[in-house]
């Protein structure tokens, strides 16, 4: 945000460093650099192209969701059904193609439509009932989880999709969602490019469009936003649908990268998305945050997840690390927010 036309002789020129320190994502950026340097120094594979390929792929799918969840959190809401949504959408495509022989692209579109419908229902329920989104989406989370587990079993008699790669036109869909490019000896998966694109678009929308202005305002002070003519209902329902749409995208990426999906895919991930968004500078109370920050939060998650494996430690340490990260980030964000509100 340069202020090219607005200059004032009374402002001592703020250095780029000071400006940078005021951004919500700065904490995540510093943490990401520290963690990268740590694992690069202590393990031999972490900083190599094949090593990076693995943790980038892990970070990418989490990252897409974290960015969407960050937009929703800036808008003042939560979505606990976001994790189950990634499994739900993948299962729909899997069941429709392998069991009922539907064209793969048609199945992908049906899956998208259903995801958007669930997002729409989430949004309308939250806005019409005035209940906290935490409760409403906890409900949809359990409904989706139930459908994923029982529905799949009832329809195909199994808990995982098999034979996906034999479906006609599978290759054309894999090219879009599941292919990988060899860059410098390491494979960079399609999901990484999707992640970058989603982050870039979300950042642009947030900071440079009317919609972005509205998202900040509905999360910051809903009554004020309504009084002044911001379409609060449309903005919030749109955010829930965006999160659900991101869930669909990640569902497709997981399905076509691994060519299978399980009934419990995504369950338990919803809190990781929220943690990544918070680590990236989003306030729990809404109205403040950043899409780039959420992407960096996911990068941290991906690096630690894989770094622990490379270091030969017990994988379960990841959970303890996440908890510490979350508490640290919340404290840091509170401090940054207080500074933002009272500075000068």
């Amino acid at each position, binding site marked *: 945000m340069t202020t090219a036309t*607005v200059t004032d002789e*009374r402002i001592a020129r703020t250095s780029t460093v000071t400006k940078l320190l005021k951004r919500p994502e700065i904490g995540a950026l510093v943490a990401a650099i520290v963690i990268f340097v740590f694992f690069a120094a202590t393990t031999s594979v972490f900083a190599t192209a094949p090593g990076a390929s693995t943790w980038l792929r892990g970070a990418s799918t989490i990252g897409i969701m974290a960015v969407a969840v960050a937009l929703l959190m800036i808008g003042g809401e939560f979505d606990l059904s976001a994790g189950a949504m990634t499994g739900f959408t993948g299962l729909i495509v899997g069941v429709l193609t392998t069991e009922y022989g539907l064209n793969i692209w048609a199945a992908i579109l049906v899956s998208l439509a259903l995801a958007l419908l669930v997002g729409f229902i989430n949004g309308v329920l939250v806005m019409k009932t005035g209940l906290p989104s935490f409760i409403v989406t906890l409900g949809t989370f359990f409904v989706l989880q139930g459908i994923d587990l029982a529905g799949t079993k009832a329809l195909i008699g199994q808990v995982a999709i098999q034979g996906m790669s034999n479906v006609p036109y599978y290759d054309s869909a894999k090219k879009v969602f599941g292919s990988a490019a060899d860059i410098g000896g390491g494979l960079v998966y399609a999901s990484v490019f999707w992640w970058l694109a989603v982050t870039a678009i979300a950042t642009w929308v947030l900071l440079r469009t009317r919609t972005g202005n509205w998202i*900040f*305002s509905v999360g910051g002070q809903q009554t004020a936003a309504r009084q002044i003519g911001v379409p609060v209902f449309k903005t919030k329902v749109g955010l829930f649908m965006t999160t659900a749409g991101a869930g669909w995208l990640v569902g497709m990426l997981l399905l076509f990268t691994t060519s299978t999906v399980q009934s419990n895919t995504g369950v338990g991930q919803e809190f990781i998305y929220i943690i990544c968004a918070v680590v990236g500078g989003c306030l729990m109370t809404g109205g403040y945050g950043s899409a780039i920050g959420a992407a960096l939060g996911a990068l941290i998650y991906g690096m630690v997840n894989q770094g622990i494996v490379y270091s030969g430690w017990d994988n379960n340490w990841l959970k303890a690390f996440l908890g510490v990260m979350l508490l640290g980030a919340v404290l840091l964000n509170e401090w940054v*927010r207080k500074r933002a509100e009272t500075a000068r």
Partner: protein
Amino acid sequence: MSDKKTEQATNVAAPAAAGTAVIEVKDIGKRYGNIIALSDVSTSVRAGEVTCVLGDNGAGKSTFIKILAGAHEHSDGDLLIDGQATTLSSPRAALELGIATVYQDLAVVPLMPVWRNFFLGSEITKGFGPFKKLDVDEMKRITKDELAAMGIDLRDVEQPIGTLSGGERQCVAIARAVYFGARVLILDEPTAALGVKQSGVVLKYIAKARDRGLGVVFITHNPHHAYPVGDRFMLLRRGKSMGDFPKAEMTLEELTSMMAGGAELESLAHELEKTMGADSEIAQTMKADVT
């Protein structure tokens, strides 16, 4: 759409010649079923003048501004806008006629920068289709200029509006209403929650808005705030008008004593004199206040 809106906003802002009545109310009243909330109120709001509406809690001030703001329709008398008898059916209808209301809670989002708050809901954009984006530089420039025209000299419009003082925030809300085409500004107790110094700041901006040719309706229960900036005073008590006076016919002392309900206070002073003795401290001060 937004481009058109800004054009419109700057056009509408052209004020009427000073002294022309923009709003006139004649014997206006409001009944809710069998409850008479307001009756026989007459006053006028003129371009370039401040009309103060004074009254204690429950005097009918809020009913009166709700009629002007379009939140309630009046049930008796006439509301003339630019000489035309009108009934305002909604706040939007009032806004379209150039009547803007700044409520006590101001409708600002504390964590957002000043310029984003200023244009919230009416953002200026450039470009087409999916590449339509906010014209950030233009909006920052206008915000800075508009605030400067109101006499608020902000160092940086990028700072969150929550960092401004209560008085300054009030002024941003006023400047925003002015920029988006208000000819008449209704201010609902803008000084009620402020300290002495901040109240002074807001009074200064009320005078500034008046000097820019706007008609201002200033609602307050403090005659000391009303008198310095007011051109016309309308007093309300128990839903009835106690009269509508131009400044020339009124001194601050008269205004204060009318506000305090002069006659009532006098009888109270007598009563205290009887029960507590003529030379008790309370009775003395009371008497001094009344006379």
